[in-house]
């Protein structure tokens, strides 16, 4: 493999992508666990190259949406499509191969405890490519540099890292295979404001460096303001009537901040509203 080859993703889409076709699409997707339904009839389209922020209260199904998007769990009903093709009919091998188009930054980074930082980042490369160890080392060091970590961090164990460092290593690992869709699950939760801005900047820089599609689940409005092209807001099913749509807002950040829907405005401005009465805190 030549040096320039590193600018290309290791796993290319199976089908050619039409410009106006959503890169990921949900058609009437529902998902529940036992008798507890989380998502109901979700219709959602993610266009190539955009940065989509999924917002909503805790427990409204944002993280489940991310796992459904990546095919890590099947929907209870409905269909998830990649490049207009349903993922339902794919064999396990096809699903594993096609899933490599996605990079996933997990909520708690989900670094492998038994492997050091270097091995964590190299994991996907060793698993899915025949790259030489020298080339893997070069790629790992490049990714570490990209997320602002020194090469000395490479030989630390995950337990020795701070929250911000763990997230950055998680991002470096997600970027190692050069995915064309990156899913960020609450990338700034639990971080201090400075580190939150570092992560937000890294999300932007990643998008500027190469044409990736980013889907960000977040509660942080600073993240939404900084990175989002479009926002989709989910609402918990427990607070909706049986026929109400679960997606209560879809639009630009500006539209969200000027929305007259109290469910949206309360969330984006962080106001409890009638919840105080409900929780009998007043």
């Amino acid at each position, binding site marked *: 493999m030549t040096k320039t080859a590193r600018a290309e993703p290791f796993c290319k889409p199976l089908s050619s992508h039409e410009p106006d076709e959503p890169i990921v699409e949900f058609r009437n997707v529902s998902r529940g666990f*036992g008798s507890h339904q989380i998502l109901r009839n979700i219709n959602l389209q993610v266009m190539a190259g955009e940065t989509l922020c999924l917002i909503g209260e805790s427990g409204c199904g944002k993280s489940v949406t991310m796992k459904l998007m990546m095919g890590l769990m099947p929907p209870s009903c409905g269909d998830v499509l990649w490049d207009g093709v349903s993922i339902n009919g794919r064999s396990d091998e096809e699903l594993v191969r096609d899933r*490599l188009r996605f*990079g*996933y930054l*997990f909520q708690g980074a989900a670094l492998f405890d038994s492997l050091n930082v270097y091995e964590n980042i190299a*994991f996907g490369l060793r*698993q899915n490519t025949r790259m030489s160890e020298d080339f893997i080392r070069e790629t790992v060091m490049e990714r570490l540099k990209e997320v602002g970590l020194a090469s000395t961090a490479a030989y630390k164990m995950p337990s020795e890292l701070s929250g911000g460092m763990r997230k950055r290593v998680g991002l470096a*690992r997600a970027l190692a295979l050069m995915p064309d869709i990156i899913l960020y699950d609450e990338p700034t939760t639990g971080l201090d404001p400075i580190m939150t801005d570092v992560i937000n900047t890294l999300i932007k820089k990643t998008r500027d460096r190469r044409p990736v599609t980013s889907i960000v689940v977040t509660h942080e409005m600073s993240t939404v303001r900084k990175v989002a092209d479009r926002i989709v807001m989910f609402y918990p099913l427990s607070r909706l009537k049986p026929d109400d749509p679960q997606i209560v807002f879809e639009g630009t950040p500006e539209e969200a901040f000027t929305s007259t829907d109290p469910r949206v405005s309360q969330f984006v401005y962080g106001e409890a509203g009638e919840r105080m009465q409900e929780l009998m805190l007043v």
Partner: protein
Amino acid sequence: MSSIPASPSDTFIHAIGRFFIELVLAIGDLALFGLGMLRALLRGIPKRRIVFGCMYEVGVRSVPVVLVTGLFIGMVLAVQTYDQFASMHMESRLGAIINVSLVKELGPVLAAVMLAGRVGSAMAAELGTMRVTEQIDALRALGANPVQYLVVPRFLACFLLIPLLTVMADAVGVFGGWMLSTSALGIESTFYWHHSNKYVAIFDVAGGLVKSMFFGAAIAIIACNRGFQCGAGAEGVGRAATESFVLSFIVILSLDFFLGVLISAIYRLVYAGQAASVWLDAMNSVGGFA
């Protein structure tokens, strides 16, 4: 285990029904998990480094506990059987009963129970923590098959190394029984080994080792399944570890019974004439039954 929600109006009959439904679901889930593991095993053996790491954890680190258990169980057998045999003036035959018990039953079962407690619970807790912290999802996201990467090496380590641990437990148990019988209970070493040699056949040792392989496979599959099905939080991880040990223990004892019956049937089939003559010899030597 999938749980079926209870309703306040449920009767005792509902509870029994729920128990059996959950039991069938759990067995089905375990069987499918085992099949998935076998499919992954047939697809290819994981990297040597990973398998050897598991083997070190399962095999090498279990040696001390297995040796101590085996030694004491051999000595306990000697102490507990001496009085009964002495009352029939058969104490010189103590070696036969100690060594047959050890190689056929106690060695394999105790090695398996120790493995279930020391390794099985740890495996369930480790995999449970990986599930709770989304590391198993991360494996799948990075193109790895979690069953291939996590379960197959643990299965191979348990399946292949438990016979060796059983041999060790058997050996130190035999040594412990002999040591106590000859040094503390005054049994002549020659008679001890003569009767051991007469009643312990290679088939008994092999039967015990075959049983141990089934125990090892069951421990690995149950522990990994409990880890993969782990509930949320520290409580879920703790429950997975406990369930792993309790289930493994029950399965080891049940398997021991069924495999014991099967192995005895095979023995009778293969060595029918030989078995009869051994018993006749035994009766003759006790006195006047022939």
